[in-house]
């Protein structure tokens, strides 16, 4: 599905990280694989350290911490906010919704739209689409929250999944501004959805003591049905097949070239997968940051804004940047946005003790 939007801009971006850092070197002995074999992945996949939320901390805690920081720092006024959109795989509860919890914790007025969207890796793209559509019908600003605490949903004895996961939340302020066109393309294939799953915990398979039991998966990894699992081969092949095709098509129909873009902000699954995409597409590595997994872990839907905040704070503040955003993952879903991001009022990365 291709859509076009006009006159929407991101005007501030905040990243909120938990202060706890887990180190790959320390976790190697949690896995049943020979340490030498596991350590080889450090270089290839980019594993080094990742941020881990406390067991008691939820996405609404990080989001309220961040939004209160923005309010207290004068980034935005309560009366400026027309909508809160939260995209997450980690709801505090089935009900109430995170956007409503954040609204309450931050004393935002009742004249506010609150929307939660369940989405993982493509969460920033979906959140932007929802924000753009809301802004077609309102003059106020949208607070877009992308956050997950997926480390709570991954087995620490699962070498396939635990080393790459990191917890983070970002908050982006989206508003009507300028008249520039935004190109948006999104695809979905639910038939391949089992490549990335958390089997238990919903209504289909409620969590029980049985779904919480760690079991040997026969490949050296131990996980429970309550845990997230990614079929690495399936997801890798999906990304290598679909993403280059989509981007080539998007460039062709927009008449744009790789050299037209200042930055390529992609979802950050792991270094190896991103390097293969760069090779395939002939993208410039100096304008394609791929260092999130080694510094923070893969934070799911927050990966694109966190990559931009971490790597390009000065550029985001001081100049307009033609950006190609792309994400791919749970659903399975894959998409891209061509838009200008820059001359932001505020860009910052902060830590919390959550």
């Amino acid at each position: 599905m291709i859509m076009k939007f006009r006159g929407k801009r991101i005007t501030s971006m905040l990243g909120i990280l938990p202060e706890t850092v887990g180190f790959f070197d320390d976790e190697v002995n949690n896995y049943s694989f020979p340490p030498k074999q596991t350590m080889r992945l450090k270089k290839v996949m980019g594993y080094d350290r990742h941020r881990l939320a406390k067991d008691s901390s939820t996405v609404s805690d990080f989001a309220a911490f961040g939004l209160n920081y923005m309010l207290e720092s004068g980034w935005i006024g309560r009366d400026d906010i027309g909508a809160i959109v939260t995209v997450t795989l980690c709801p505090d509860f089935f009900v109430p919704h995170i956007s409503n919890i954040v609204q309450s914790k931050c004393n935002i007025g009742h004249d506010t739209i609150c929307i939660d969207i369940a989405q993982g890796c493509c969460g920033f793209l979906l959140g932007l689409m929802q924000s753009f559509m809301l802004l077609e019908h309102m003059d106020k600003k949208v607070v877009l929250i992308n956050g997950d605490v997926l480390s709570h949903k991954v087995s620490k004895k699962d070498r396939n999944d635990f080393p790459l996961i990191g917890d983070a939340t970002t908050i982006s302020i989206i508003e009507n501004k300028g008249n520039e066109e935004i190109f948006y393309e999104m695809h979905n294939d639910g038939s391949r959805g089992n490549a990335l799953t958390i089997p238990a915990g919903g209504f289909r398979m409620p969590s029980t003591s049985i779904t919480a039991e760690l079991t040997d998966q026969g490949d050296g990894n131990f996980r429970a049905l309550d845990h997230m699992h990614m079929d690495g081969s399936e997801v890798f092949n999906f990304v290598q097949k679909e993403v280059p095709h989509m981007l080539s098509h998007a460039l062709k129909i927009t008449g744009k070239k790789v050299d037209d873009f200042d930055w390529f902000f992609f979802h950050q699954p792991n270094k190896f997968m991103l390097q293969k995409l760069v090779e395939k597409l002939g993208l410039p590595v100096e304008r394609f940051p791929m260092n999130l997994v080694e510094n923070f872990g893969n934070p799911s839907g927050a990966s694109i804004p966190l990559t931009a905040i971490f790597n390009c704070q000065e550029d985001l503040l001081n100049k307009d940047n033609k950006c190609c955003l792309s994400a791919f993952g749970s659903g399975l879903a894959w998409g891209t946005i061509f838009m200008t991001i820059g001359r932001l009022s505020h860009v910052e990365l902060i830590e919390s003790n959550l």
Partner: protein
Amino acid sequence: MNEEIMAMLKELRPEFDYSDSEDFVMDGFLDSFDIISLVSLLEEKYNIKIDGLDIVPENFASVETILSLVLRSGGNK
């Protein structure tokens, strides 16, 4: 080149006797992370870039399929 590939396999997973296997992946000698590690070793050793679409289990089933992949990716015999 066959011996060099076998040495890499032995370095990755020394516990297996590869001569016993008709399919390294199906027999559980190599998992998806071993394949990624092997790709990295092959690219470094032979100064090649293996296309992401070629990183599929069937190309890592035997020394012969791995050799074929290396040659297809620009490696010199």
